[in-house]
């Protein structure tokens, strides 16, 4: 994230929150609507698929989209 001009301190200073949790818990938090974005280390991933059962997701915010 720092390469893109933002780090986790920026998130917290702006009123956001950073959760260091297991991947399974990340999926649960996302399904419950308690996090806005979850960063998974792989794709396809059983945890992303778990969230997808609840509602559609988008993955990998692209470099292209960063410039828009």
């Amino acid at each position, binding site marked *: 994230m720092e390469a893109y001009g933002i780090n986790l301190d920026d998130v917290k200073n702006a009123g956001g929150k950073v959760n260091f949790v297991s991947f399974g818990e990340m999926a649960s938090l996302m399904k419950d609507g308690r996090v806005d974005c979850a960063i998974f280390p792989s794709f396809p991933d*059983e945890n992303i698929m778990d969230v997808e059962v609840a509602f559609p997701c988008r993955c990998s915010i692209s470099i292209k989209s960063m410039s828009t």
Partner: protein
Amino acid sequence: MYLGSDGITLFALDPSTRQPLQRRHHVKDWRRDHGGPFFPMAASVNGDQRSVPGVYRLLSRRIPFSNLKKIDGGTVDLGLTYPVWTYDAWVGRAIFEGKQYRNIRSIGKIAVHPFQLTVPAKSKIRTIMDLKDKNLAVGPRGVERSTISGG
């Protein structure tokens, strides 16, 4: 040889030395014991796990560098890993110090990025900067470093 610049890369033996892929060679899912991202790939290659006993062998963690060694040695046919580790294996540095692993070839990529920033499809988050004041789940501490570098 294309080593892959990012993401998760699928590797196989150098075609000039590799034997034809056969079921007895067992395409292996080297990730975790509960499945993982490589499971769909392996399933598409070998069919349903339940109907083809022994096709998979699910092993434990710290496997991307083991994959490279096993592919190079010809004990498995396909494997997945990350580009940084592949480069280390190719030039023989870091954990691969003492040997250059050159009997490997990239045959494809299963993920464009090493990390998947996942949001609900209806989310207004479109860019990295949109994350600034959001509630994020980033995984266990240190997972990024261990995923990318094996450290």
